[in-house]
């Protein structure tokens, strides 16, 4: 059976983990209605608009 000859060094391990398990941020767009940052293809969480239509009414905080 094939067995690793050398223990993986700290550097190799960290290089592997840095690239293979890096998280990516979601793409952010700006709502054409209120200008808040939103995700694409989703209802704007701050004003409730989607494709120029009021989908939800958002409760104002406070």
């Amino acid at each position, binding site marked *: 059976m094939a067995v690793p000859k050398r223990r993986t060094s700290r550097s190799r391990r960290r290089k592997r983990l840095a690239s293979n398990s890096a998280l990516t941020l979601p793409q952010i767009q700006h709502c054409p209605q209120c200008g808040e940052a939103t995700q694409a*293809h989703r*209802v704007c969480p701050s004003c409730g608009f989607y494709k120029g*239509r*009021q*989908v939800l*009414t958002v409760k104002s905080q406070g």
Partner: protein
Amino acid sequence: MRHRKRTAKLGRTSEHRTALLANLVCSLIKHRRIRTTLAKAKAARVVADKIVTLGKKGQEKDSSIQCRRLVAARLQQQPRHHFAKHNGVSGKVQRDEWRQNEDVVRILFEDIAPGFAERSGGYTRVIKLGRRRGDAAEMAILEWVKDGDMPVRESKNKPKAKASKAEVVTEEVVEESTTEEVAEEAATEEAVEEAVTEETTEEVASDETETPEEAAAEGTTEEPEAKSEESDDEPKSADEKKSD
């Protein structure tokens, strides 16, 4: 081997899954729009479309009863004949209220299916809402499609016509301006309907603050939405309620 079988299993046994989908479609018929996870919305829209097809078939007199029975079977609806007098409200009043608000088969055949006479398929729309807090599940709204409630984008068909690149660019600019106008019109129209959307969001908001026990303790109208948000122990409580 489970190859090329695309049915969404939703992590449930078949009985559990059919019960869940029936409940989701029932609450869609009753409330016109529901808020669930994206996976459940996508699974429920398949059932909803088939139910509407049956509802359209049942508009003809001679197939009406058969279609109604098929819908009732698929949505796990029991026939109700007896309404006992309860808290001073007569059985007739209760029956009329049930027919108006709870009788899913009647609502489908009389209120929903006739509106789709001109449309051949694609009766529902899924709108993504983003991820919910807690388990980061992608949430969505499932609702019936109405004519003219969303501005139509025509640009998707244009690039297939194989116009040259320069033409495509100019066309897109023109389309953007037109869609914006349509969007503004739609926004003013929707402002009138805001009251309706407010109601639904209030329901959603109140569900979030409730614990599952409280939601289960309340009336059956609250139950489907709570179910769509909670996971596994909900259908059991629904079964208990049906047996009551």
